[in-house]
């Protein structure tokens, strides 16, 4: 198999990095491309970046390719939390080994991983990988959404997170619900996910922020059932999210005004453009690009984003 081409050291900004509302992101992303070995990637003080990444067949063969692992680690380090789909391995060491690779530059990411799921012998796992210097997880919140009607091929994994700011009472807290739909039963699964979203909204009286994210195998024109969720919106629209640039399959779905912390910044981290890869090498990494959205790191109550009065930016500890 051909080796990956060397990374470009000064490539232009990702061409599909769209609708970027926070100017602070641009230097961060540029830095990530030009100084990959200079220590942890600096992240914006005024936002957390939440991403979804389907790492197609993320298992032993992918982890055995150093060039692929390097692209994956550099991609993940761009974000505060990455919801991963398609861990497919007999080994339990794939995600731990990957997080060790992510942390090789001094980063301090950690992970949680779900059970193997699927109706056949071919199983997948979900995982959340997050930067512990900026994000905390509630360990008791990690689980799989019950699916008594067996509607979902791989019922989503949920976990509740909190930004690390001072004072902690002002932290933005939120559920993440990680999903990879069955491409052959998309309408039925999207309908079921609408119920999942509403159930998560009601799961705790003290939590109104739910972000459903993953590989939906569908784009906004197929999100009709989501309209049953009052105020529903989604980050990604009008661009493709797969590596071949032909489909919009990946997204982050949430509701407003509940999640007023959404800053309007979102993007697709195009693997080809960001890392200077030809298509065939980008496809070795995954058939999906990561998608992301930016959120204010402090809880927003009432209308509009307040200044972070009394709060500091996410801190490194």
């Amino acid at each position, binding site marked *: 198999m051909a080796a990956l081409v060397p990374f470009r050291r000064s490539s232009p900004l990702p061409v599909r990095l769209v609708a970027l509302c926070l100017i602070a992101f641009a230097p961060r992303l540029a830095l990530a491309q030009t100084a990959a070995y200079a220590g942890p990637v600096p992240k914006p003080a005024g936002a957390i970046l939440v991403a979804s990444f389907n790492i197609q067949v993320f*298992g032993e*063969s992918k982890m055995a390719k150093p060039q692929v692992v390097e692209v994956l680690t550099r991609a993940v380090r761009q974000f505060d939390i990455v919801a991963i789909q398609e861990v*497919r391995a007999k080994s339990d060491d794939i995600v731990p080994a990957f997080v060790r690779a992510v942390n090789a530059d001094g980063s301090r990411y950690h992970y949680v991983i779900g059970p193997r799921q699927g109706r056949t012998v071919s199983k997948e796992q979900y995982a959340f990988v997050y930067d512990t210097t900026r994000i905390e997880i509630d360990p008791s919140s990690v689980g799989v959404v019950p699916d008594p009607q*067996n*509607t979902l091929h791989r019922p989503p994994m949920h976990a509740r997170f909190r930004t690390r700011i001072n004072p902690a009472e002002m932290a933005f807290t939120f559920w993440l619900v990680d999903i990879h739909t069955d491409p*052959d039963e998309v309408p039925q699964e999207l309908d079921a996910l609408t119920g999942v979203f509403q159930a998560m909204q009601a799961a705790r009286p003290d939590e109104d922020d739910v972000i459903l994210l993953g590989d939906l195998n569908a784009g906004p024109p197929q999100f009709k059932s989501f309209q049953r969720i009052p105020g529903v919106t989604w980050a990604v629209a009008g661009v493709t999210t797969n590596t071949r640039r032909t489909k919009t399959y990946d997204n982050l779905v949430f509701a407003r005004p509940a999640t007023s912390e959404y800053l309007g910044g979102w993007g697709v981290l195009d693997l080809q453009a960001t890392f200077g890869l030809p298509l065939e090498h980008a496809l*070795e990494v995954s*058939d999906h690009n990561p998608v992301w959205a930016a959120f204010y790191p402090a809880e927003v109550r009432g209308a509009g984003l307040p200044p972070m009065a009394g709060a500091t930016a996410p801190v490194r500890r």
Partner: protein
Amino acid sequence: MPDIQALVASLSNGNAAARAEAAESLCRAGVDAASAAVPLVQACRDDDQVREWAVAALEELGPPPPAAIGDLVRLAGDDHALVAYWATTLLGRSGEAAAAATATLAASLEAGLNGSHDPAVSERAAWALGKIGPAAAAAKPALERAAAASDPRLARLAREAIAAIGG
């Protein structure tokens, strides 16, 4: 564009790593690998590394070419559950063009109802019959029995298939 036929030939290589690499390359070919539908379904009985890439390739493959339907009908009745599952899935993606699979899919459904078949295969058979639509009318008696099943997923899929068949 990769040489699909060469990759298909490599799926029969005696070396498991070579077979896995071929399955991975077919996966990366996306819908361009549609002509490899039958060999990829057969690769589902291979070892884990080959199987996972074959499954991933099948997920992205879209509908198979019409010429593959005869082989897929045969494989839908295979004893290997994953082989039968993916053959059934590809038949469903073929829609009305897979009408010739009706009897085989109805048999899968019946086998599921009497507990002698992998539930996932029977459920997919109900789904596939719905995708075939009116041309699968001969399967309505089996679907009606499945619609009354205690398994909520099988019952739902059977009801949806009956609605799609109509009449």
